[in-house]
């Protein structure tokens, strides 16, 4: 079975956000680029399934500028077989445009499973997976925290308010991964060496007319400075009073 993993390269979660001169995007100076944390679960899930089935191919796909190749190389080092880089230097926050581009590349490959992260740590849109599935006409479950394959049926679980939905879906299917699905492996030295010889196919891409227009990127208003009401249990009465009389929240 061919499995696809869609990977986005994002700024490290520790990144200090500075708005670029255009007032609309992140200033890339000093940013460390990493694999979107949820996509690590996606890579791991595909690799574990391939190992269990003892056959198949795992293809990593990423859409973005030149730097995404380091992240694709990382997926190859983890164990993916090959990678496709959809090259665009103008990656707008437009999930539908990304999903359309991914659908075009993925459709002819006829995968059994397409894995994505539940959301990207930069724009946290959580939309590319279900949009891609809709465009491909495939069943899809999002925010998957447990996965089991039984023949051609996937049994998965997803967290909802107050419980875990259990879902069954037939392959081929699209799944987006939540934390807790597995523990992503680190690339081994052997994996890193092997990855150097694995192919990354680069394809030029035109994203077409955007569906969303980026107006601005701003830093959020700072929270008004709070106060230390006191030390230890002695401060409790004042805290209760402040919550009741000043903040009026209890």
């Amino acid at each position, binding site marked *: 079975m061919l499995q696809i993993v869609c990977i986005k390269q994002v*700024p490290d*979660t*520790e990144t200090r*956000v500075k708005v670029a001169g255009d007032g609309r995007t992140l200033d890339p100076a000093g940013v460390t680029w990493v694999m979107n*944390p*949820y996509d690590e679960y996606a890579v791991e899930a595909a690799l574990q399934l391939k190992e269990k089935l003892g056959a198949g191919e795992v293809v990593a796909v990423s859409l973005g500028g030149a730097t995404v190749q380091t992240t694709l190389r990382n997926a190859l080092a983890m164990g993916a077989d090959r990678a496709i880089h959809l090259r665009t230097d103008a990656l707008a*926050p*437009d*999930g*539908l445009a990304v999903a359309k581009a991914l659908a075009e590349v993925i459709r002819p490959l006829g995968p059994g499973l397409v894995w994505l992260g539940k959301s990207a740590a*930069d724009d*946290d849109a*959580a*939309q*590319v*997976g*279900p*949009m891609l599935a*809709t465009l491909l006409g495939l*069943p899809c*479950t*999002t*925010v998957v*925290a447990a996965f089991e394959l039984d023949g051609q049926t996937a049994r998965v679980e997803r*967290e*909802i*308010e*107050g*419980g*875990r*939905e*259990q*879902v*069954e*879906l*037939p392959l081929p299917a699209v799944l987006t991964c939540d*934390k*807790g699905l597995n523990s992503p492996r680190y690339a081994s030295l052997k994996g890193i060496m092997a990855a150097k010889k694995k192919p990354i196919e680069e394809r030029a891409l035109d994203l077409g007319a*955007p569906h*969303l227009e*980026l*107006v*601005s990127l*701003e830093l*959020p208003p700072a*929270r*008004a400075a*709070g*106060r*230390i009401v006191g*030390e*230890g*249990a002695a401060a*409790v009465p004042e*805290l*209760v009073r402040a*919550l009741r009389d000043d*903040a009026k*929240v*209890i």
Partner: protein
Amino acid sequence: MSILVVLEQRDGHVRPVSREALGEASRLAASLGGPVVGVCCAVADPGLAALGEAGADKVLLATHEAFARYDAAGFATAVAAAVTAVAPALVLFPASAMGRDLAPRVAAMAGVGLASDCSALAVADGRVVATRPVYAGKALQKVAFTASPAMASLRPKLFAPIEPAGGRTAAVEPLAFAWDAAAPRAKVTGLAGAKSGKPDVTEAEIVVSGGRGMKGPEHFTLIEQLADALGASVGASRAVVDAGWRPHGEQVGQTGKVVAPKLYIAVGISGAIQHLAGMTSSKCIVAINKDPDAPIFKVADYGIVGDLFEVVPALTSALRQSR
């Protein structure tokens, strides 16, 4: 032009996020124009006429026997049919577990962009502009839409329902939609671990969260007692979830849940940037930590520096007495 609001129900009860979305639709209708039309997928009418009080002028009810639980393909087909029938200027979804799954499917079917998990909406020069937290809340992105309808999902707890207008009812009409339920699709087969009556952290009015400072899972009874005294739900930092002390559903932060309760109490939590990403939209934040330099105090409205094993029981008993 109308505004279409996707209403969420579970087990025959309209969920609070639906009223929040209707509230925002009513406010936007002042500049975008109305009417405000709801659409709800269910096996039977969960009492939708009453949502007139929450701001709905009309509600379209899509019924199907498969709609006893969330059915992604079926709900998307029905809501897309409502989009076609109503031709709204704007479609609002709650950014609940259901809405976050459903909205992108409907947007893809309609071929339009979606602004997910918005914290504010505005109308400027007749255009909808959506504000959404990005980079884990470290920045706010504003986006506009290049085609109609605009689609947005709204982060729970940030949008106020309107004050109920006494006795106003919404007209409820059946929605016609063509859906082939025999086509291969994802089916919900069950709901595991449905917890006590407590609301999920994303929907609770008050959240009390514990971190590694709790020293072990057995001490979370202190957190639970404080939560009970406040009628609050329990949350946790990733450190304690990863240690297996608390279930993942309680994790607050970048890789957990984003919460915006009116009161958030962080106990023995240092305030790492990834934790702050999940709770800085809370209206009031209280931190209890023995380290006066803990970063959590930078975002807290009120802080107590001290040993949580003394402060928390004292707080719990003070709250019990003040009832």
